[in-house]
């Protein structure tokens, strides 16, 4: 299984209250039109869409939405590997471990550091380039992009499909620019939504 592109959505959507579908996270609401087009594109072209939560929002539970393959964080759980080929949407389990202080101390915002199967999923999907976007740019998106790089993946960041994290996690415009600079220095390709979509138009 090889894909030219894959989407890594960090915390832009959450499971709805009825637990039968998704809603856009309130902080990501300004991005909703772009997000919907990206999700539609992923469906049309069968690009894999991997997503995860950050430090807020409702967490997806295993079995909530059958179309989404739930990737558990325990390393001994490997049964999901058999189901990859029949899915195009994947949710990386992320645990919250109590209050915000504990979550930060245990680096719970960093899904690639806390989900033991994440790197394995990205490897098995064999995507040439991951398109990264999301909510909580300086913490969750940043660590997600770095985690992909550490796992040996190529990364492209959609700069204008990101929302800064709360100021409490250092989410200032200054930190946004610094993070983009750092990611570019790590060989992350950066672009914006319109040129990216145009590049996919035949």
């Amino acid at each position: 299984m090889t894909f030219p592109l894959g989407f890594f959505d960090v915390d832009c959507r959450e499971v709805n209250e009825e637990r039968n579908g998704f809603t856009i996270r309130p902080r990501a609401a300004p991005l909703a039109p772009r997000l919907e087009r990206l999700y539609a594109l992923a469906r049309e072209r069968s690009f894999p869409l991997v997503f995860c939560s950050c430090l807020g929002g409702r967490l997806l539970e295993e079995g909530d939405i059958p179309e989404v393959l739930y990737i558990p964080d325990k390393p001994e759980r490997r049964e999901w590997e058999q189901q990859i080929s029949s899915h195009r949407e994947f949710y990386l389990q992320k645990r919250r471990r109590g209050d915000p202080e504990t979550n930060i101390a245990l680096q719970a915002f960093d899904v690639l550091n806390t989900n033991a199967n994440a790197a394995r999923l990205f490897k098995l999907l064999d995507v040439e380039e991951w398109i990264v976007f999301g909510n909580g740019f300086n913490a969750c998106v940043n660590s997600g992009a770095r985690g992909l790089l550490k796992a040996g993946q190529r990364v492209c960041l959609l700069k204008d499909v990101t929302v800064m994290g709360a100021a409490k996690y250092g989410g200032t415009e200054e930190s946004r620019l610094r993070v983009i600079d750092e990611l570019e220095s790590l060989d992350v390709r950066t672009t914006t939504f319109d040129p990216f979509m145009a590049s996919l138009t035949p």
Partner: protein
Amino acid sequence: MSDTLQRDDTIATPIAITGLSPSDSYRRHSRRRLLFLVAAIGVVLVSLMVDLITGPASLSIAEVFHTLLSPWGGSGREHVIVWMLRMPTALLALLVGAALGVAGAEMQTILNNPLASPYTLGVSSGACFGAALALVFGTGASLVGSTVLVPLAAFGFAMLSSATVYGIARVKGGSTESIVLGGVALHFLFSAGVAFLKFVSSEDQLAAIVFWIFGSLQGATWPKLMLVSACLLVTLPVLALDAWKLTALRLGDDRANSLGLDVRTLRRRILLIVSLLTATAVCFVGAVGFVGLVAPHIARMSVGEDQRYFLPLSAILGALLLSCASIVSKCIIPGTVFPLGVATAFIGVPFFISLILGGRSRFW
């Protein structure tokens, strides 16, 4: 003091048995310690390599070595992983570990106390309190706040904490109990201060404090490495120049004074350096306990009190301990990274206890 003399006696005993002259025996002893240092450096390099090889990307050892040999040549995936992601993290572990090892060693030396370390005597807590204070009350301008004011406040309070411990030691005649109790009290005071600041801070400030205090090796970058390196490059030569004086200080204040040392000035200077090293370490990886306490003890057990060997070995062992912790944090559950403090304790405590129980009956 008598302990030190006894230790010297145990060093001297083999002279009579082997029939070597004192100077030959000393040279042999020095050579052995030098070899120990070289071997320790070798182990650190091995640890660095293992740290570079370990990670979620399935890079083979050959790929890592090949990438290491062409630091300017590559721009591909391997180059980014090895040189831009793993190398800064691995080197930051070494540098911060070295800083903490040296800080602990010199605190134990100048306070003449085996329990002294930046963590146990409240210097790390002081740095955390200073940083928290700056984050709550002083960071109106984010650039100034994040890059200048917070580290400055951390350093200032680390210094204040060291000076207070030193003051207590002087007032109470330098007794072990008063130093330890004073340090522990300061640790609790500053921890309570941080808790108070968390209580009165806004939600944003609270998270900023927590974010800053816990730190991590994962945010390592080359500019951060430059800063820690600069700190070590400035402080280590100063300590090396004072090596004889610090060795003499372990004989006790009276003897050191009789040898012509200005003990007070020396202590003040070393406290300043210890505070700088501790604040730097805390600024980049948070309050990591244990390294500053254990690395000097292992160094002392291995090469004795002579600061020409003890100081570099404390730095090397501190670096080794944190580097091993970095590796272990990646290997406990493959695919995840454990908090650094957990990994440090996991590998350090069993090793330290085995050293205490395993033969060397007297190391202080």
